[in-house]
C-alpha cells in the first residue's frame, strides 16, 4: 500500500488560482511535495495559505489549475473525495463530538461496517503504536486536554488511511513541551513515508521540523527553500518582502506605583465551571504585565471581569482604592477611572463592523455630549487624525471597518482606546492575525503608552514576544494563577511548565 518511491510526488499543484470576488486568494501556485517529506507553509495572514490547503482538502474548489495526487490528476470536490485520495486535514479548530469518546469520534463518518469495540480498540492502538501516538480510546473528549484532542484529530485521519497530512497552525494552542511531542509524532510519520504539510507562523518551529519551506505572499508563491540552507532573517524577508528587525524594545521605567489591585478574584462560568480562582496581583504604572497561558485558561474571564463585563463570584478589583466589581461598564467610565480594554474579538466586541471609523470612534463617548442627537464632528476629526498618525489604510473614514484588513482594524481599535488617555490599558491578543509589520507597530504603540506611565495588562500567546516585551509575566492555568515571574530572568521552558500546572515555588515578585 505504501508506494512511496523517491521519484513520485505525493501532491503536485499546477497553476492553482482561486479568487473570492475581486480578492485574489491564490494565483498560479506551483507546488509539490514528496512522500516522506515535511513541508512548511509560511506566510503572513491573508497570504493564502489556508485557502490553498482548503482546496487540497476539498473545502474549496480551485478556479483554475490542476491537482495531482501520487502522479495522477484528480478532482477534489468534497472532503470525502480528499479522504479517498488519502489527504487528511487537521484544522485549527477541532471538529470533535465532545460527549463521545475518542474511539467513536475516530470512526464517526466512516462507511465501513461497525466493528466490535474490542476489535476497534486494538486497531486504533495498533496505529497509535506505529506512529507513537499516546491515546486513550475510551476517554471522553470533554475530559481531554487540548493536546489530547489534537491527537484524536490526527488519529482520525490516520485511521482513514491518510498518507498526506495537512496541519493548520497545530501549535497555536500547545505549550512548548506539547509542541515537541507533536513534532516527534510528525517525524515518525515522515519516517513511515507520509507527506506532511504544516502551516505555522512561528519561524523557529519551521526551522526545527521542516525539510523544505514554501513562502507565500499576497497569494503568490514567492520561493521554496531548503530548511537546512536558510535562517529566520531570510525567511522573514521572503515573507514580508523586505528586511525587518526582529527585536522588541523594552524601555525601563523608574517610577512605578500600583494603579490596579486585584484581590482574590474568582469567576464562575455560565456552565458552572470555574473561570478564575483566587487571582491576586498588582498592576503598576509604567509597566507591561504579560499574561501567559494555554488558550482558555481564564484570560478572557480576567479581562472581562476587570472591565465589568462578567459577573464576579468573589473578590475585588481596586482601582485607585475604589472597588469596581459589581459596577457596569457605564458606571466604571463615569467614575472617571479611565480604563481601556482592547478585547480579543475586535469586530465582535470592540468595534461595529458595518460602521465606518467615524461611528466607531464614538462608541464609548457618544453619551458625552448633551441632548438627544449625536454629534459626529469630533469623532470625524479623531478618525482623520488617527488615519494620519497610525498610517491606517482605508479608502475613507466612512468605509465599514469590516472591509479593512486585520492590522488596520486593530490600529483603529487600539488607537481609539489610546486616544481616551487611559491609566490602565488591557489588551487581549493585540497582534493576533496581524502580519509582522503591524505587530511591531503595535508593540511600539504599547511601549509608547508604557513610557507615558500607563499600566498595561498584555494577554499574549507567543511566548517569545511575551518574554521580550513584558516586564513581568503572570501565568494562568485552568483559571488559577501559577505565579508571576520576572520576564528578564525566566525561560520559555519554565513558562511552559507553569502553563501546564506546575506552581512556582519561592518568592512572589509581586510583594
Amino acid at each position: 500500500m505504501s508506494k512511496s518511491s523517491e521519484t513520485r510526488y505525493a501532491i503536485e499543484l499546477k497553476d492553482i488560482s482561486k479568487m473570492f470576488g475581486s480578492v485574489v486568494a491564490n494565483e498560479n501556485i506551483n507546488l509539490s511535495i514528496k512522500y516522506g517529506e515535511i513541508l512548511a507553509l509560511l506566510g503572513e495572514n491573508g497570504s493564502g495559505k489556508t485557502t490553498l490547503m482548503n482546496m487540497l482538502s476539498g473545502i474549496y474548489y480551485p478556479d483554475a489549475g490542476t491537482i495531482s495526487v501520487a502522479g495522477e490528476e484528480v478532482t477534489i470536490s468534497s472532503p470525502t473525495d480528499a479522504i479517498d485520495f488519502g489527504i487528511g486535514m487537521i484544522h485549527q479548530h477541532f471538529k470533535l463530538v465532545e460527549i463521545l469518546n475518542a474511539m467513536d469520534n475516530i470512526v464517526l463518518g466512516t462507511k465501513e461496517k461497525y466493528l466490535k469495540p474490542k476489535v476497534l480498540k486494538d486497531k486504533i492502538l495498533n496505529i497509535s503504536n506505529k506512529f507513537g501516538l499516546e491515546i486513550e480510546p475510551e476517554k471522553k473528549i470533554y475530559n481531554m486536554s487540548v493536546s489530547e484532542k489534537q491527537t484524536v484529530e490526527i488519529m482520525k485521519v490516520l485511521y482513514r488511511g491518510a498518507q498526506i497530512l495537512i496541519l493548520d497552525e497545530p501549535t497555536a494552542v500547545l505549550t512548548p513541551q506539547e509542541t515537541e511531542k507533536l513534532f516527534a509524532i510528525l517525524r515518525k510519520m515522515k519516517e513511515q513515508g507520509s507527506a506532511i504539510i504544516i502551516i505555522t507562523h512561528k519561524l523557529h518551529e519551521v526551522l526545527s521540523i521542516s525539510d523544505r519551506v514554501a513562502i507565500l505572499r499576497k497569494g503568490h508563491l514567492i520561493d521554496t527553500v531548503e530548511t537546512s540552507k536558510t535562517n529566520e532573517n531570510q525567511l522573514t524577508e521572503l515573507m514580508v518582502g523586505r528586511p525587518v528587525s526582529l527585536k522588541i524594545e523594552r524601555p525601563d521605567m523608574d517610577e512605578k506605583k500600583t494603579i490596579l489591585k486585584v484581590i482574590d478574584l474568582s469567576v464562575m462560568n455560565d456552565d458552572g465551571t470555574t473561570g478564575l480562582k483566587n487571582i491576586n496581583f498588582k498592576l503598576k504604572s509604567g509597566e507591561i504585565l504579560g499574561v501567559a497561558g494555554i488558550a482558555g485558561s481564564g484570560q478572557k474571564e480576567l479581562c472581562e471581569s476587570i472591565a465589568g463585563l462578567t459577573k464576579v463570584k468573589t473578590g475585588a478589583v481596586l482601582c485607585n482604592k475604589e472597588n469596581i466589581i459589581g459596577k457596569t461598564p457605564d458606571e466604571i467610565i463615569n467614575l472617571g477611572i479611565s480604563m481601556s480594554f482592547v478585547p480579543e474579538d475586535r469586530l465582535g466586541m470592540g468595534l461595529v463592523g458595518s460602521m465606518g471609523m467615524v461611528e466607531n470612534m464614538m462608541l464609548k463617548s457618544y453619551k458625552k455630549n448633551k441632548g438627544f442627537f449625536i454629534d459626529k464632528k469630533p469623532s470625524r476629526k479623531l478618525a482623520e487624525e488617527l488615519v494620519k498618525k497610525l498610517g491606517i489604510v482605508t479608502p475613507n473614514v466612512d468605509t465599514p471597518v469590516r472591509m479593512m484588513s486585520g492590522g488596520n482594524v486593530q490600529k483603529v481599535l487600539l488607537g481609539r482606546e489610546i486616544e481616551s488617555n487611559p491609566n490602565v490599558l488591557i489588551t487581549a491578543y493585540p497582534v493576533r492575525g496581524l502580519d509582522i509589520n503591524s505587530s511591531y507597530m503595535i508593540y511600539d504603540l504599547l511601549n509608547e503608552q508604557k513610557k507615558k506611565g500607563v499600566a498595561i495588562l498584555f494577554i499574549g500567546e507567543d511566548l517569545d514576544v511575551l518574554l521580550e516585551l513584558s516586564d513581568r509575566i503572570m501565568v494562568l492555568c485552568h483559571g488559577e494563577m501559577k505565579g508571576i515571574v520576572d520576564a528578564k530572568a525566566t525561560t520559555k521552558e519554565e513558562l511552559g511548565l507553569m502553563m501546564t500546572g506546575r506552581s512556582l515555588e519561592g518568592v512572589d515578585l509581586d510583594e
Partner: protein
Amino acid sequence: MNNINKKAKEPLMRTVKRAERSKMDTIKLRIIAFVLALFAGGVFILLIGYNPFELYGTIISGAFRSEMAIQATIKFMIPLLISSLGITLAFIMQFWNIGAEGQIIMGAIFSSYFALFHSDWPHLLLLVVMFIAGFVGGGLWGLIPAYFKSKFNTNETLFTLMLNYIALHVISFLRDGPWKDPGSSGFPKISRFDANAQLDKIFGVQFGWVIGLILVVIVYIYIKNTKQGYEISVVGESQATAKYSGMNVKKIILRTMILSGGICGITGMIQSSGSDITLASSVAGGVGFTAIIVAWLANLNPFSILVVSFLFSVLEKGSSVMQSTYGISTYSASVLQGIILFFILGCEFFIRYKFVFRNKGGARA
C-alpha cells in the same frame, strides 16, 4: 491506500461569490429582473387565455386612471408604509419582529375604545387621544416579547408570531361580546365609528398619508442622527459590543420594541378610523407580513420604504382593477403578484453571487 480509481467529476455548476458590484450594475440587474418578471408573468397570462400587454396596461391604468384610482392606491399604501417603518426599527436591532399584524390590531383595538365610547369628546382631542392609544396598544404588544427576550432569551420570532393570533381573537371576542353592535340585529359586528371619530381627509385621502410622510422623515433622522438610533444599530450588530461600550442592552431592546410596536399600532389606529371606519378583524389583513418584504427590499432605509411601498400598492390596486375588468379570479392575480415578487427577490442572490459552469474557465472572467 490511495484508491485513485474513484476519479470524481467536476461539479456541473458552482456558486461563486462575486466582486462588489457597482451601483449602476445593481440597478441594471434589478431592471433585468423586472423585465424577466413581466415576461414570466406574461407567459402565465397567456396560459390562462388573456393578452399580457392588455393586462399589464390595465394594472398601470388601474392604479392611475382617475383621481379616485390614485386615491385608492394611496389608501393601500398608508398602512403598508407605516408598518414597514415600524418593523424597520426592530429589524435594524436584528430583533425579528414578525408580529406587526398583532401590533396593528392591538393599536386599532386601543384607539377604537375611544372612538366607540368617547365619541362626544372634541374632535381634535379625541383624535390625538386615539393616536396615543394606538401607539400604546401596539407598543405594549411589542413590549411583551421584548421583555421575555431580554429576561429569558426567548425566541422573538415565534413569540411575536403567536401574539398575532391572540390579538386577532381578541377582536373576535370583542365583536361577539362586549363591543357587539346592538343595532346589528344578531349579526356580530362592531358598530361604525361616529363621524367625530373619523380621520379627516386631505386631497380626498385620509389624513394617514401625511402622518406616513412625517414618520418617514422622523424615523430616518431617528436612525441616522440620534443617540438612541445609534444604540439600536450597535445592539443589532453585536450585543457584546454594546455591552462593552457601556450600553444597557436590555433597556434598548425594550425601548426599541415599544417604538416598533407603537408605530405599527399607529397603523391600526389610522386604518380603523381612516379607512375601515370601524374595528374589523381584517384591520391588519396581512399588511404586517407584506411589510417585512417591503422593509427588506428597501434595505431598511425609510425613503426607499416609501418608494417600495408605493410600488407595492400600485401592483395591489392595479390587479384588483384587472380582476374586476376581466373577471380573473383573485387567485390568478395573486399568482401574478407572486411571480413578480419571486423575480425581484431572486435577483438579490445574483447581486451577490454568480454561477460558474463546468469547463467554462472560472471566476477569472
